[in-house]
């Protein structure tokens, strides 16, 4: 059997990881006898795999679900869920730290109990795992196999010696951390998002190599917990994919919390000295050394395409971009589809979920749903959060689309002022001369919640002027969206119409 995920390999003494194992990888699990051929065989039981398997089974299909490690995938076990629980603890700390500003006297010594915060994370992860347990999936009629799947032909896979034939298959093996090739890093030891949640003691100091979303989220959280935290990023821009104002605002928020950010800085080698990891960095020719207790690498994800023997099934792939798919999520083998991080540019749980639904439709029910038609929002859960949906202005301009952006700073929103959460803005991009929403960026404490209203409007084809007619509860932070919509309505008034209205009221 392959090495297991660390929480199982090195179980923390306590009930939560044991229950997690019982749910997501029961020690006494026996793979079922294959019922051949499967209508849908799903490789990988992360968000995409679980959705596809459940949906297909509910619709009466014969479904096999194969998982190499833990049901739930990266999102539940070492991604979205555990990071958000830690972020919650870190936000609470920040609120207590700032409590005096709100007229509340905090205790003299606010102490972070890191071990307790991590235990809470494990408890919550385990709790959420109950709905996705192997036993439940089996009860829903899904044949759950634990083991490594390898294609043996265009219509069959081998799972640890058992051969499973399929009519249609979906590969949803996800992604894994991309490890930087820095001399000495492996010898010195490092954490990735797959191991950082196994920590039980707070490192006194932490270097995050790479300024990606998860790296930034965890850097801020660990800094608030009390680690001296440094981010090095080898490009000159912080969160380079985001709008500059958004990234700048988050960079300042991290700096306020005490995170040291070194942009345009490359880690060139690592050595261990006196129990510390010493990282030599290079910035425009200047060499410096950063000395820390732990290193976290957060420089992106690579699709998990190894060990699948995709060649045997005639499925084309690229080590960097993953499995090659068409707009219907079909691979180069027409029987085989893919969904999630293994093939998508947008490596998010919600995108994986949506793609899996498309696959079920297209693979089993002659659907012609296109992945390009999806409106995918995403959010980086720093404090404040950055959420985005649709097109970026730069993309639109590259395509020759004239764009008008309606901007409302959160400091113009009464509820944000009342909440003391004024850092941020709502920017809604529309096609100039119309009210068609092309995209939006929200920076706000609850940007991830706020963006949903805009996504809804985009998917439903609702223009920004119609959004202006929607009464938003007052006072809420989402009122920023209504304000942007009203600004759009105002500028839509032509000079002639404005003149007519003035004439009318002054008649």
């Amino acid at each position, binding site marked *: 059997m392959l090495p297991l995920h660390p929480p199982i390999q090195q179980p923390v003494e306590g009930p939560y990881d044991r229950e997690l194992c019982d749910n997501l990888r029961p020690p006494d699990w026996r793979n079922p006898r294959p019922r051949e051929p499967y209508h849908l065989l799903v490789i990988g039981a992360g968000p995409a795999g679980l959705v596809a398997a459940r949906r297909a089974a509910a619709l009466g299909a014969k479904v096999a679900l194969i998982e190499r490690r833990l049901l739930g995938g990266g999102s539940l076990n070492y991604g979205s869920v555990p990071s958000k629980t830690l972020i919650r603890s870190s936000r609470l700390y920040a609120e207590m730290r700032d409590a005096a500003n*709100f007229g509340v006297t905090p205790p003299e010594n606010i102490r972070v109990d890191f071990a307790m915060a991590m235990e809470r994370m494990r408890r919550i992860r385990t709790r959420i795992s109950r709905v996705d347990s192997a036993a439940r999936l089996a009860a829903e009629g899904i044949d759950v196999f634990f083991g490594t799947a390898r294609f043996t032909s265009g219509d069959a896979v081998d799972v640890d010696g058992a051969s499973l034939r399929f009519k249609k298959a979906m590969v949803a093996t996800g992604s894994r951390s991309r490890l930087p090739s820095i001399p000495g890093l492996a010898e010195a030891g490092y954490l990735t998002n797959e191991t950082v949640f196994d920590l039980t003691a707070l490192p006194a100091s932490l270097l995050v190599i790479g300024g990606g979303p998860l790296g930034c989220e965890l850097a801020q959280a660990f800094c608030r917990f009390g680690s001296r935290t440094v981010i090095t990023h080898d490009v000159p*821009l912080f969160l380079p994919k985001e709008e500059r104002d958004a990234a700048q605002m988050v960079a*300042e928020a991290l700096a306020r919390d005490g995170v040291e950010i070194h942009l345009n800085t490359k880690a060139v080698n690592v050595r261990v000295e006196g129990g510390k990891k010493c990282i030599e960095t290079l910035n*425009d020719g200047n060499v410096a050394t950063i000395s820390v207790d732990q290193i976290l690498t957060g420089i992106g994800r690579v699709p998990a395409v190894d060990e699948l023997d995709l060649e045997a099934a005639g499925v084309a792939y690229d080590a960097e971009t993953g499995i090659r798919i068409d707009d219907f999520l079909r691979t180069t083998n027409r029987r085989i589809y893919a969904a999630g991080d293994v093939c998508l540019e947008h490596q998010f749980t919600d995108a994986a979920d949506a793609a899996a639904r498309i696959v079920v439709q297209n693979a089993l029910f002659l659907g012609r749903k296109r992945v390009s038609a999806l409106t995918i929002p995403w959010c980086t859960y720093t404090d404040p959060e950055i959420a985005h949906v649709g097109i970026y202005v730069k993309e639109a301009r590259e395509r020759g689309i004239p764009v008008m*952006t*309606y901007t409302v*700073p959160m400091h113009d929103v009464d509820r944000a002022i009342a909440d003391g959460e004024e850092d941020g803005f709502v920017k809604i991009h529309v096609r*100039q001369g119309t009210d068609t929403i092309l995209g939006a960026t929200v920076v706000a404490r609850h940007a991830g919640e706020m963006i949903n209203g805009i996504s809804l409007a985009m998917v439903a084809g609702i223009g920004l002027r119609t959004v202006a007619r929607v009464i938003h509860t007052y006072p809420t932070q989402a009122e920023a969206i209504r304000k942007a919509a009203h600004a759009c309505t105002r500028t839509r008034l032509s000079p002639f119409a404005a003149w007519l209205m003035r004439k009318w009221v002054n008649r």
Partner: protein
Amino acid sequence: MRGTSRSSPARAAAEPSDDALLDRLQRAAFDYFLQTVNPRNGLIADTTRDGAPSSIAVVGFALSAYPIGVEHGWIERADAVERSLAVLRFFSDSDQSGSPDSTGYRGFYFHFLDMRSGTRAWLSEVSLIDTGFLMAGVLTAAAYFGAETPAETELRRLADALYRRVDWRWAQRDGSAVMHGWKPECGFLHYGWEGYSEAILLYVLGLGSPTHPLTEQSFRAWTVTYQWENLYGYDFLYAGPLFIHQFSHAWIDFRGIRDSFMREKDCDYFENSRRATCVQREYATRNPRSFKSYGPDCWGLSAGEGPSAPPRLVAGRRQAFYGYAARGVPYGPDDGTIAGSSVLSSLVFAPEIALPALRNLVARGPTDAGDLVRSSGFNPTVGEAGPTGWISQGAFGLDQGMIVLMIENYRSGLLWRLGRSNPHLRSGLRRAGFRGGWL
């Protein structure tokens, strides 16, 4: 003269007219270039502080200021020519090898130079934008000093050669947008220019070069990062700090000429800067972080020096202070510091709001010399430094240069006239897609 004074009747008698006030402030700023020059090589110090190196951008402002001094009778024409010649000869003969202690490379120059030797200071980078400011000054001098005397002929010859020597194309990344800078130690600095900025001057100069021009693609690659936003009721090409909306306008008269972006938006860069000025006033009126003194007549977030004080609580919020920084609206950074000279540089765009602000700042200053306007920055929120709060000490060359040039554009439009007459600028603007108006 435009604008009115809003001061109390009691002080009104003692107050100079707008024209007299501007003349005084402009003259005082002009004197900076006389006081901080090394007459041997014509280099000008970056600031009045001890040990300050020369900044090539400030030299560009000095070259642009001398003609103004001649027009106002503050220096003799021969003196101005001599000062200009000294620095043009210096750059002409300078070490262009790009070695770590040279003066420049491929026609560009290190951002900071030693005042005496003229070689690289502070391990600075070969700076594109600062070479741009220098070249704007070089071309301004050549356009103004048009007499057929041996000295002025030499001046024009050197200026032309310096401009022609700049290898703009070399600094284009993959044939598209222009890089920020270059260092002998590590090559190009990989900061691209993203979003609207003062680099518009750089592109116009680079596109207009008869010898090593940027490709037209470079300007498109840059402007594709523009954001046209509606903020506080104003539609404008967004950039936070005021200086971005001002620097290129010192030399280029953007009134009535439009590139394809501005045609699409039915605006021009001059009108855009007017709106950006109004946005600043709106922000200061809202004053979201409740800084002291901000208001309709106290605004101007731009590049400048602020306090480097430890963080403190301001209106229920832990406020950091950023020292020298490019401050902007509405997202900051903002630590309560106003760059007073940015108000003077707004005169051409929005005199109806800039003059009252100017009067307010002059009235508030510790003396009647316009300290708050001429200093690089002041911060009333950091109050323990004195009754008017923290004030940056000494003077910064960039601020003084902008004060001299922009007041002149407000009073006479001299720099714009010289710019309009310059065939390289005209060609650069046309290649960037500008049409209409005086072009």
